[in-house]
């Protein structure tokens, strides 16, 4: 039977590695049954992962497009699908389809710019693919600053990679912070928005901001104080999705569908949408 390809029908993916990153976040490595990367993607794009009988959900692809061998997903345990994934072992099959959404404009707007990444908690997951992409093509960008905060040291996602790779990169400055004092932590303590203000960045940067709504709100206020305009700030949204192709209607906010017109938005674009995200 000849029929056009159906976007809703996923392919099988195999979990080849599970890494416990923080007490409630695991990073899963996924390839096709024949060991290849399921599809190419751009930084900031997402994929629909599902466990038949449990559900399907959208996750940002945390590995960089420059990784041609596999994809990684950092997933926080918080609902049916994620709970199930957290008890999955290596070798477990899942289904995968994608890539979905508009990526970060890494080759256009970001090109040649100084980049400032600001993330809180699990929100590093969508930014990690961008960070690793721009690190890979460092000559195409200016200075890279990364401010990342979490509740505690244990809650810092991809801590090893940050310490062993990002921190050692030339031209990359990493600023870590945790919410409360903790033994064996000699870094900064405090919330991300305050830390950003303390660090007092120059406004010659493009900001990529992602985190819980409350963090975004206060960080944005801080950035505005420092002189940043909304046109300089990008973020990525998360809403309930079922089809991921702009048809099922649930991630519709204003005239946009987060799954296909987003998830990456510039803040001034968000201003034109009703506050329903």
């Amino acid at each position: 039977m000849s029929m056009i390809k159906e976007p809703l029908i996923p392919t099988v993916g195999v979990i080849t590695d599970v890494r416990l990153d923080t007490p409630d976040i695991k990073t899963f490595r996924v390839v096709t049954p024949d060991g290849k990367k399921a599809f190419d993607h751009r930084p900031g794009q997402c994929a629909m992962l599902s466990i038949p009988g449990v559900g399907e959900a959208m996750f940002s692809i945390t590995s960089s497009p420059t990784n041609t061998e596999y994809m990684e997903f950092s997933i926080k345990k918080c609902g049916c699908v994620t709970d199930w994934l957290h008890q999955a072992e290596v070798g477990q099959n899942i289904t995968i389809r994608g890539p979905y959404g508009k990526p970060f404009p890494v080759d256009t707007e970001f090109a040649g710019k100084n980049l400032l990444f600001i993330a809180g908690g699990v929100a590093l997951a969508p930014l990690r693919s961008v960070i690793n992409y721009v690190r890979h093509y460092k000559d195409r960008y200016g200075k890279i600053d990364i401010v990342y905060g979490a509740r505690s040291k244990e809650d810092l996602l991809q801590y090893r990679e940050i310490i062993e790779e990002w921190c050692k990169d030339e031209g990359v400055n990493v600023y870590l912070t945790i919410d409360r004092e903790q033994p064996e932590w000699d870094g900064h303590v405090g919330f991300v928005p305050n830390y950003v203000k303390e660090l007092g960045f120059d406004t010659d940067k493009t900001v990529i901001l992602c985190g819980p709504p409350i963090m975004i709100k206060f960080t944005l206020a801080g950035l505005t104080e420092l002189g940043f305009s909304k046109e300089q700030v990008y973020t990525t949204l998360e809403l309930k999705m079922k089809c991921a192709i702009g048809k099922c209607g649930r991630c519709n906010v204003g005239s946009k569908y987060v799954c296909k017109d987003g998830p990456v938005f510039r803040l001034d674009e968000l201003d034109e949408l009703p506050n329903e995200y």
Partner: protein
Amino acid sequence: MFKCSVNEIYNVFAKIADGKKLYVPADNKDGNAVYTEWAEGVELSNALNTAKSPKDFFFPQFENLMEFKVEGKSIEVNDIREASEDFVVFGVRACDVKSFEILDRVFLVEPFDSYYASRREHGVIISMACTRPTETCFCTTFGIDCTNPGGDIAVWKTEDAYYWQANTEKGEKLLAALELEGCGEDAVNEQKEKTAKVMSKLPLAGLTTDSFGGGKTMELFNRPEWKTLSESCLGCGTCTFVCPTCQCYDVKDYNTGNGILRFRCWDSCMYSDFTKMAHGNNRLSQVERFRQRFMHKLVYFPENNEGIFGCVGCGRCLAKCPISMNIVKVMKTIGGND
């Protein structure tokens, strides 16, 4: 243009139904018109329109999408799609014909929805011009001419005959096979004029979309009237499910005990769980959900679709809403053209 006499219509149906399925509006035992597969003895309804919209033909309320076989850690994905069979729907009104165009703008844009596309490809729409519109009709508001109903073949009914005209290649092919007698257009034109006169007298004839359309999001979204309009909304899905253009769906899995079926079914933005996800819900109150439905039809959809509104004025929600709240009341209140 071709014609057949009123008495001949069932012979024509028999010809169409020879080889493919033909659906016509027929009265059920409660006297409501429903699309029914035609067979000898099924009588064409005289009702203005069917209780449910014909969107089911292309976008059924429930359909299985795929099947999974799970064994231990392994998963097998089975494509269970079957090629649609050719079918013909007779008696679709202009408003509903237009609704297919709206659905096309969702399902037939990249990436194509193959389930919908396949049915659309295999379906032939025979429309029927209206002769006795009712007080809840407001298709003219959206620029729809119920006397020129479109579709693959358009049909006009006069007192003694049915007049047929093909609009598409698909329609021409089918019409040619029916071998009807050729005729002039006078009778049809006369009928059209008569109907047009009634249309101008309809109570909702003055309803306009002037206050709506793309670019009006911020202006209309924060209007305080949404609260009073939605005050008594039950949060049921009646309006959504009788609506010919509502197309939101849910995708769910069902474990049959011998495999897992992933199906999709109609969903309603009026339901409290529509946007509920693990970390919260971005539309917590009925006001927000109610507003979403109308904003989508009247602002968001036209913004993305060259000004085409997501409503066709069929009037079903006016007739069916349990609390009689509907798009007309919303348009009059929010649009202020009372």
